């Protein structure tokens, strides 16, 4: 009970921090609203110059704009998790906040689990504003239902991704030191493997296996199946159970890596 109270208080604090940063920078609000459209427009322009939209719809089973807007929305939401978790230790260290975070009685794990939640809620809410109109235009009332399913699945993707993202992020910092290169290395890799823009069922076997290790990849697969109308119970429930199971499976790893990261910091001395 005490831990839940602590956690909600932490999430509230993080929300104040993130929302203050967000709403005091109007350009960020605009960027959050426009991002799914910008990335979709970019990919459509690029895609139409080398292939045909008809071929895309035949091969994937859904119109390219809808597929890409949903994909961008999912990616934006999922990447909010990776970015926040990987970016915060560096940001906190550079701004001199880290010593005060680490010398607080709050556990590192509890803190890092609370970190991505506010930005994720923002990206879900603002991204939905971009997702809903396109879905409704293409699919009418069914589009509204599809959008709600996509939002729910993006929330699940994020929740099950936190343990692995924390373990990966802090693990990279433990082994390679803290720098932006780690984020630059991890982001594109996840972008491909999660299968947002390239459906998993079209991947080669080695890529498919690697992708299967990422909890959000299974949620993304369900979203894509919903989009193309393949909503058989087994095809939907199995990936969701797998995603949840992987999220739970990675949790001990997150605890261990967090402890290793904290120990490394304490051995080197937290930079002031």
């Amino acid at each position, binding site marked *: 009970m005490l831990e839940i109270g602590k956690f909600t208080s932490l999430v509230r604090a993080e929300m104040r*921090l993130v929302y*203050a940063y967000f709403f005091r*920078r109007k350009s960020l609000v605009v960027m959050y609203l426009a991002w799914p459209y910008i990335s979709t427009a970019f990919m459509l322009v690029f895609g139409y110059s080398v292939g045909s939209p008809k071929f895309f719809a035949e091969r994937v089973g859904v119109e390219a704009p809808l597929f890409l807007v949903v994909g961008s929305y999912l990616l934006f939401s999922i990447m909010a998790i990776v970015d926040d978790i990987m970016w915060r230790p560096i940001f906190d260290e550079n*701004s*001199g906040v880290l010593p005060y975070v680490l*010398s607080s*009685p*709050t556990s590192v794990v509890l803190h890092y689990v609370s970190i991505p939640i506010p930005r994720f809620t923002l990206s879900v809410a603002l991204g939905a504003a971009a997702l809903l109109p396109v879905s409704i235009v293409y699919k009418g009332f069914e589009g509204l239902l599809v959008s709600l399913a996509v939002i729910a699945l993006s929330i699940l993707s994020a929740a099950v991704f936190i343990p692995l993202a924390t373990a990966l992020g802090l693990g990279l910092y433990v082994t390679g030191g803290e720098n932006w290169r780690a984020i630059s290395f991890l982001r594109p890799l996840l972008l491909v493997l999660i299968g947002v823009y390239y459906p998993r069922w079209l991947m080669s076997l080695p890529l498919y296996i690697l992708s299967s290790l990422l909890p959000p990849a299974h949620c993304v697969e369900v979203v894509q199946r919903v989009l193309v109308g393949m909503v058989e119970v087994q095809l939907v429930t199995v990936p969701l159970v797998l995603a949840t199971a992987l999220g739970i499976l990675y949790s001990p790893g997150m605890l261990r890596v967090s402890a290793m990261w904290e120990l490394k910091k*304490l051995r080197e001395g937290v930079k*002031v």
Partner: protein
Amino acid sequence: MVLGDAVVAEKLVKRFVTKKRTGLLRSYSEVVEALRGVSLNVGAGEVVGLLGPNGAGKTTTIKILSTLLLPDSGYASIYGYDVVREASEVRKLIGIMLTVEKGFYGRLTGRENLVYFGSLYGMERRELERRVDHLLDLVGLKELGGADRLYEEYSLGMKARLALARALLKDPPVLLLDEPTLGLDPPSARKIRSLVREMASKEGKSVLYTSHNMFEVELVCDRVILINKGVIVAEGTPERLKSMLPDVRAIEVYSKQPPGSLAEEVAKLGLEVREQNQVQEGLYVLKILARRPDEVVGDIMKIAVSRGIDIVRMKVEEPTLEDVFIYFTERGVRDREVH
């Protein structure tokens, strides 16, 4: 509150290994001994100054006591809680201030920053809001109009006040302050000093306070510990430390005429003449070093009269804490003294 020493450090040792690059593929490891067996204590309600030149080990000591750095060997505790094995208990008892110029989120106001850190400290919301409001008033940020201003717009003095407010947020019995007035304007520095003094005398908080400012340390601290190259070289009250200096004082002789001949005769008495023919306020100044000034002042007067030199005034300089600092850090010899 537990009785006894608030802060205890025994034989703390810390080495840092740094990699030095000498070429594209070549590098070597360099070991820096930051602490070489540092032992100290801070009593309940006591303000102890940790003085030392850059790289002496002050910040390393503060970091170990703040649970932000693991020592290689030795033991340290806060009110009996081991800073390594019982870090989470220690963290409830300490308030830290490590830098003045950063350590907060720039896009949050002072109040929002304090609420954020209070949440990290697990404080209950209503109590936290009340406490934050009280502290913003106490450190003078409300008066300066800084409570609800963005941190990135703060002056250095305001940043320091906010940092002290954070250290006091959970009303800890122990404060670990690393150069809390570094670079501050006099009013802000004075405010910080008076608050620290007040916290110790009225609320019984124990404070470990590092600084380069001798004047400040003398004003604020009950006891001073001098550290150099990772070793404690002297310890005691400021007065006690001054009395530990060799019994040599400077006598300043102010005269209307050039004191050249006086200097020659004084040197014949076996006294060391430091400076002569310096002019201050239209008078010539001669500086003489003597072991027992009282015994030689009469002789100096007699010589001056015989040489026709009018002495306007004579002054015996008392040693300052700065003299103590320079003496012990340059000597580099451990000379521990318990007050």
